[in-house]
């Protein structure tokens, strides 16, 4: 099955359904319905790490790794924002090493904004948002050096990472920083687990900022994504049943919910 370039009628219907779920969750959150978010274990680790470096008066660092402009980045920004606010309260130096110039612009904007929101705009120092390199390993070497010179008390690694993940995490480990990582790349989570105090896995990264901020919109997003996943789970369940029936009686092997999604416009019209 190759990648989907254009929506089939089935996909449009599905998209409509998903948007409906999305709107419903926003509506019900706006309407004041309370949803409790299951505690994400990593959250305490984040607050704890900041607290520690506040005691020791050490800087904290936050890196989005190789994340480019994408939903993942958007989720990371949520976390960065609340971390920045806490850091601003404690008057901690916040280092944000950068990989992509475009992302740097977005990040700088977010950080500046966060400082303003807590009325500490004057504390914001643009030079702490350091562009290192757009080359994977040049970035890694820069990060290693930076961490060893600044010796932050807490290091956060949130976003998309590749092979360099272990280099970054090991650097933090070497200077004894309390590290919390969150990655959407499962291949790298293993290395974070081995080197960080706590690692948020995959989707937890998206849940984290909602939990931290308790901001209704973010909560609504998490609610929506849970409902959508539930929808897909049911879908898979049906699919599995169909497949089993199909394997038992091969005359029924045409039973397959996904095939509906692949009906072309032509089929629909003739239908």
């Amino acid at each position, binding site marked *: *099955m190759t*990648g*989907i*370039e254009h*929506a089939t009628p089935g*996909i449009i219907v*599905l*998209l409509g359904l998903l948007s409906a779920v999305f709107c419903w969750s926003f509506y019900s959150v706006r309407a004041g319905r309370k*949803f*409790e*978010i*299951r505690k*994400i274990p990593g959250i305490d680790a984040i607050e704890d790490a900041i607290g520690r470096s506040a005691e020791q008066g050490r800087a904290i660092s936050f890196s989005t790794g190789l994340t480019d*402009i*994408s*939903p993942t980045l958007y989720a990371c920004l949520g976390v960065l924002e609340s971390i920045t606010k806490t850091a601003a309260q404690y008057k901690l130096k916040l280092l944000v090493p950068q990989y992509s*110039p*475009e992302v740097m*612009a*977005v990040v*700088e*904007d977010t950080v500046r904004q966060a400082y303003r929101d807590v009325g500490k705009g004057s504390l914001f120092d643009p030079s702490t948002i350091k562009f*290192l*390199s*757009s*080359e994977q390993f*040049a970035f890694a*070497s*820069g990060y*290693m*050096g930076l961490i060893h*010179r600044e010796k932050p008390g807490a290091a956060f690694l949130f976003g998309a990472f590749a092979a360099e993940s272990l280099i970054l995490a090991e650097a933090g480990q070497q200077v004894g920083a309390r590290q919390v990582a969150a990655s959407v790349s*499962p*291949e790298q*989570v*293993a290395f974070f*687990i*081995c080197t960080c105090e706590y690692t948020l896995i*995959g989707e937890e990264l998206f849940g984290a900022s909602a*939990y931290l901020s308790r901001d209704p919109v973010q*909560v609504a997003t*998490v*609610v929506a994504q*849970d409902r959508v*996943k*539930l929808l*897909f*789970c049911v*879908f*898979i369940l049906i*699919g*599995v049943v*169909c*497949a*089993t029936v*199909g*394997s038992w009686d091969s005359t029924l092997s045409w039973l*397959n919910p*996904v095939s509906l*999604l692949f009906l072309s416009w032509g089929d629909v019209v003739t239908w």
Partner: protein
Amino acid sequence: MAQSELLSIILGGIGTIAIFSFLIKENYFYRIFEHMFIGVAAGIGPILVLRDFLWPQIVEPMLGYTITAYPDGTFSAEYQPLYFLYVFPMILGMLYYSMYSRKHAWLSKIAIGVSLGASGALAIRGFFAEVIPQIASSFKPILVWRDGGFQAVESVNNLLFVAILFLVLNYFFFTLGRTGSVQSRTASWGRPLLMVCFGAFFGSTVMARLALLVERVQFISRDWISAIINVTGGTF
């Protein structure tokens, strides 16, 4: 061997040693090459963007450089004025630089906005492109009959696959079950499975990473040393 290649090997070897010296502690030798690396990388990147994208794909068509003039005064094609529309994204992109002015910094948010919007919409397509095939291939029969016989092993594997899939998906529900509900009590079951997966990833990566270490050691102990000997004429 050309002078440049020889020099490359010698420099590369010194650089490699500098990077490895970091393993003892962060030191000046490392710092020099770290900064050199970043400098060189930062110098190469933009030129590549310019050389491989901006110039051939945008500027040349815009200026009509892609059209060849023939000896008889005719041209390979007529100039396409629509290409001039590229001026607008260029201007939009330039807005990024307003972030350096206190007064007009907000303008950069327009450029950021467009990028966010575009990648948002693209991600919608990306979602279906990634997820639909995955769902389709998760439809595994948990009881497999093939060529008249019941396939016990395959059935067990498929059953495990589906079960694990659901258990782990369940782990990632955040707002579904109230505390004490079945969901919230079973949520944690996914975690051990995750750990197995990560362990496996770790194990299967080890060999590849080590291979790279071996490659470097060989580079130093063969190419580099012989290059040094080549230069010093073996007199040291």
